[in-house]
């Protein structure tokens, strides 16, 4: 099983192997319906975990519960052993509808700066940090543009930049590329994979795109909808042993990729 560089480093250090995020019997009821049956799993530092499933299976709700935007009806989510009850700056959230998550009246620079302002970073220090983060996502040349002047992919990158500016330890991504065209999606996938590895982030990534999940993740968790007795939300966990760095061409021809893809597709089909 190939471990990300950071996780390997941690394993050799004397630090305790406590999971960063722990879902302990997390169940969620919304609007009178059970969206998620009690679900348990752990996420260790540096892991890239993808969550897939059909519409309505509760994958977005799970992500929001882990961020503290939604309350668990049963069980709890623990980060560093402490229950998550409200959002924290250590956990950054990338929304799918980037257009609505950016401030239209601020430039790219201003939008990224919001995270620093919220964290109380002194004004003189901000420009340098903003510029650094914008360079990381390749938007250095567009710092003074308004979101309305940018393409969808660029707007999503602004959001990612703002999340990185928070210097989080955990990055939550809710179908971040769902609203983008295929080419933009692929290039952003690679960019995120690169950034995550470079920054040593732990990522929870929700998507409905099975290939994307296998391509990006160390582990793929498949949820199913309409949970009930004998039908838990968490249906299947798949480890992805494909080595990094990955690329769009060769990885997708890798035997493990094809095998996992077949497995996952068959499983999802079964559930319907």
């Amino acid at each position, binding site marked *: 099983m190939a471990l990300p560089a950071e996780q390997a480093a941690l394993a050799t250090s004397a630090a305790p192997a406590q999971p960063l995020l722990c879902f302990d019997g997390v169940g969620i009821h919304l609007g009178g319906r059970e969206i998620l049956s009690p679900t348990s799993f752990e996420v260790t530092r540096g892991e890239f975990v993808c969550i897939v499933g059909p519409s309505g299976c509760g994958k977005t709700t799970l992500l929001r519960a882990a*961020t503290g*935007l939604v309350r668990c009806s049963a069980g709890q989510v623990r980060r560093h052993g402490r229950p998550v009850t409200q*959002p*924290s700056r250590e*956990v950054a959230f990338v929304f799918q509808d980037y257009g609505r998550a950016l*401030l*239209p009246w601020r430039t790219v620079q201003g939008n990224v700066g919001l995270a620093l302002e*919220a964290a109380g970073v002194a004004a003189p220090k901000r420009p340098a940090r903003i510029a650094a983060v914008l360079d990381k996502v390749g938007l250095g040349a567009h710092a003074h543009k308004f979101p309305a002047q940018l393409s969808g992919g660029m707007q999503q990158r602004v959001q990612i930049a703002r999340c990185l500016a928070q210097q989080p330890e955990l990055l939550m991504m809710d179908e971040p590329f769902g609203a983008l065209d295929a080419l933009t999606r692929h290039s952003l996938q690679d960019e995120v994979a690169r950034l995550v590895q470079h920054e040593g982030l732990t990522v929870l990534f929700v998507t409905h795109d099975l290939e994307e999940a296998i391509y990006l993740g160390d582990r793929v968790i498949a949820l199913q909808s309409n949970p009930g007795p004998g039908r838990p939300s968490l249906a299947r966990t798949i480890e992805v042993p494909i080595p990094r760095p990955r690329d769009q061409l060769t990885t997708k021809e890798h035997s493990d990729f094809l095998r996992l893809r077949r497995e996952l597709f068959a499983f999802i089909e079964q559930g319907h």
Partner: protein
Amino acid sequence: MKPARLSPLDALGSVAVTLALVALWWAASHGGWISRVFLPTPEATFASLREGLDGGELAQFAQATTWRMVEGWLLASLLGVALGALIGVSARARAYLQPTLEFVRPLPASALLPLAISIFGLSPNMVLAVVAFGAMWPVLLGTIHGFAAVEPRLLEVSRCLQLSRIDFILKIGLPNALPDILAGMRLSLTVALIVAVVGEMIASQPGLGQAILLAARAFRASELFAGIVLLGLIGLASNALLGLAEHKLLKWQSP
């Protein structure tokens, strides 16, 4: 609605059409199609205008009316934005107050003049009070709407970033409400001018309102028209200035 950008040729054509209308006016008054008692000639109007502005009282009247309008509008905007922000951010306040506000919305601001006269008597301050009160509603309602309609996604972003409440109001609530506030202020300016003029008419306060009323009663049509032209100019200039400010402040809407 902003006028479309015109090419130089179109601008010229537009001016030509306007001049054609003026020519029509000239012909109608000179040709006696409409009695000169009702329709003075353009030259007579212009002469009255010049006379009134040069040595006469028109300049003072125009100033008085403009000042009344601006003062009332500023008061109205201040109160409207402050109250509107307080009410707008609180869903509970909105639930209790909005129905009453919606009821008062269609009420003509001038309808409060008799009540104000009752309480304050015929005085310049009475007119100012009604101007301010009447002009407050569009700004108030616009501000409430602006603060109430914050994109829910931005609310979540502010929670994720852990923005303080004040920071939220200043950095997200206010800029988000600004287009609605400015639109309300634009409407308020129109109301302020109208109430100022009506107030002058019925409370006999010196100003363009009273001036044109007296001119009509004395059958001095060219003076009446001169006053109307001035009022039109005041409306035009104030709207244009506000439109310019709006454009500057809302640059991000059309980058």
